[in-house]
């Protein structure tokens, strides 16, 4: 059994090419069924299709036929000639495919290193294949272990640590300033997509109380009504909001700053040194940078937040080496399992096959054997058993040696071919197969 991979991603193909291969969930199920239809070489298949990559994983006994089938399938999918995407396609066989999938699950192949969405996408791809009945023992093990690798990378290294979006970076800073946010209030000035995103992050960080200000009072009320514990404040009373809040998210369309230092000085006196954190995501800026000069005001504009994000991405990239070490470790685990897949059942089938020959011959001559004495019958048994064992000994030993050298699959395949062994699919957890038949 071999594992085959064919794919394109954002590193090998521009979006015009990638979009030709993008498959929705429904289409994936249909594609899987036609790829693994029992008549072709592919015995198992899983398709991973996201906006940044489409990858076809298959398990097949014959390598060349397997790739031919995959190639044919892929060109059937694309509505452009092969020359259009040939350079964008990459392949991976056996451990290369395993390594690649593990790297993808760990987030190393994503546009934002360490992002978490891909892990769910890998899980979903497997789920769809299971439902379609096209994922079998090999790919089940592969994808389950890939999810495990994804989790390990994210818990054991810093690959997924620290905010890599402007709004989560802002909330991270708020936590750095205040610690526990559950008793802090946030003032929202203006509204928009970024405000909503920031609110979402603030809520999950524990902020419970919101004050909403907008030039149009109706819009403030509207936004406040959509939040669990929020109060709308008229624009003229913005100062009061600034006195009460701890975090300010500002994103109005104003062309000039609406908060300046002169205005903040008396407010800070009223606050008696309570710190105030401004998240100014508006362009042009809503908060005059001079406000940052006030001791207890911390003003971060969109560039500052972007700087924090860059810094975080940098430290994530430093973790790549450690993730790669985890991946190598897991690839080795998988390899051991994978090669034992072929070797152990093959040896069992081999023994059964030769034993089968011995028993067949003995029963063929059973009538004449009946006329022998007990002692002679035992001798016949002993000689034939000895023959079987000695015949088995060398190839068995050689196959086990090959397995240790990571060549197990190849030798197992050779043994199967040479002796015409029929090695049945064993159960998921491994176990005794049925009688091997000799031709």
């Amino acid at each position, binding site marked *: 059994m071999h594992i085959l991979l064919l794919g394109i991603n954002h590193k090998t193909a521009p979006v015009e090419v990638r979009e030709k291969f993008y498959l929705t969930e429904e289409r994936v199920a249909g594609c899987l069924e036609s790829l693994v239809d029992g008549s072709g070489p592919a015995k198992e298949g899983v398709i991973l299709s996201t906006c940044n990559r489409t990858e076809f994983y298959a398990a097949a006994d014959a390598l060349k036929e397997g790739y031919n089938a995959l190639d044919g399938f892929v060109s059937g999918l694309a509505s452009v000639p092969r020359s259009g995407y040939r350079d964008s396609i990459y392949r991976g066989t056996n451990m290369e495919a395993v390594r690649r999938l593990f790297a993808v699950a760990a987030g190393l192949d994503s546009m934002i290193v360490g992002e978490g969405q891909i892990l769910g996408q890998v899980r979903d791809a497997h789920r769809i294949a299971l439902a379609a009945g096209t994922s079998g023992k090999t790919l089940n093990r592969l994808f389950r272990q890939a999810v495990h690798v994804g989790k390990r990378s994210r818990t054991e290294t*810093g690959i997924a*640590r*620290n905010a890599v979006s402007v709004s989560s970076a802002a909330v991270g*800073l708020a*936590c*750095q*300033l*205040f*610690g*526990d946010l559950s008793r802090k209030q946030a003032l929202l000035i203006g509204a928009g997509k970024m405000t909503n995103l920031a609110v979402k992050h603030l809520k999950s960080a524990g902020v419970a109380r919101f004050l909403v200000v907008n030039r149009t009072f109706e819009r403030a009320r509207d936004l406040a009504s959509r939040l669990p514990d929020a109060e709308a404040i008229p624009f003229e009373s913005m100062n009061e909001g600034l006195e009460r809040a701890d975090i300010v998210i500002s994103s109005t369309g104003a062309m000039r700053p609406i908060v300046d230092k002169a205005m903040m000085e008396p407010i800070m006196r009223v606050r*008696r*040194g*309570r*710190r105030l954190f401004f998240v100014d995501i508006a362009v042009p800026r809503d908060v005059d940078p001079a406000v*940052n000069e006030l*001791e*207890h005001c*911390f003003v*971060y504009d969109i560039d*500052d937040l972007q*700087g*924090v994000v860059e*810094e975080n991405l940098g*430290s994530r990239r430093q973790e790549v080496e450690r993730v790669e070490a985890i991946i190598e470790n897991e690839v080795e685990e998988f390899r051991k399992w994978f090669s034992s897949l072929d070797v152990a059942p093959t040896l069992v089938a081999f023994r059964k096959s030769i034993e089968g020959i011995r028993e067949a011959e003995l029963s063929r001559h059973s009538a004449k054997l009946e006329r022998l004495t007990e002692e002679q019958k035992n001798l016949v048994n002993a000689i034939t058993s000895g023959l079987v064992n000695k015949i088995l000994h060398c190839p068995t030993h050689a196959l086990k040696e090959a397995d240790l050298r990571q060549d197990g699959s190849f030798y197992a395949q050779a043994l199967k071919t040479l002796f015409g062994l029929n090695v049945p699919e064993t159960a998921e957890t491994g176990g005794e197969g049925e009688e091997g038949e000799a031709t």
Partner: protein
Amino acid sequence: MTFNLLPFIIALVGLAVVFYSLTVFGQKGKWDSSASFAYWASAALHAPHAAFHVWREGRAAFLGGGAAAEFLSLGMAVVYLITERKFKNRSFGLVVAPISFLALTFSYFHKSGVGEIPVELNSPLFYVHVPVFILGYAFFSLAFVSSVFYLLQERALKSKKIHSWVRRFPPLQAVDDLCYTLVSIGFPMITLGILSGSVWSWLVWSRVWSWEPKETLSLITWLVFAVYLHGRYLRGWRGRRTNLILIVGFVCILITYHSLPLSLMQDAKHTFIDP
């Protein structure tokens, strides 16, 4: 001839210094338990060692700059480890452990327990006056460490240059509040120390206060921290100003501790202590 545990204690603290640096600058989370373990181990060795010392030599165990440094280190270690438990953050260890290390090394090279206490000063008040000061100063020293961390982090957050190790510090507000808590606990202790000193002086010399150098300096130190508490609590002072006061206070503590050369110039009550 007792077996001197001090080198082992110093070695453990040295190990703690290394581990604490790694908790801030190295791989996140990997060195946390090693650092705490090393420091706890050193304190666990040091406490009985110090207790034994006191039991054997009595009051003389507290004499000398070496003894002072050693007990301060133990005090800081215990107070710090308790805060570490509560805070679950080990970045302060980065400063506390080296201070401990330096104090202990200093005490190793300065013999303690030399000198005799004049007979008239043999009083149980000794065991109130001295330890309460040591513990109080331990709290204040830790408050100093917190204020250093506060100022570092505040500078980073204001200038928008936030290095990864700054991220490992506890939240800014928590650090500021911790300073306040530590000083609030240490201040009554120091007050008790000064009062017990007064009472004692009155019992022995019939004078409540004699303006000798060490007394005066500890009063100044007391005033600095009183100003801190007043400003913080009553006037709502917060941030840089209060933390700078704490730094001034710590400098006062250091001066007070080493004020003995001045004492020698006069006929003072703290002269018998070998500097």
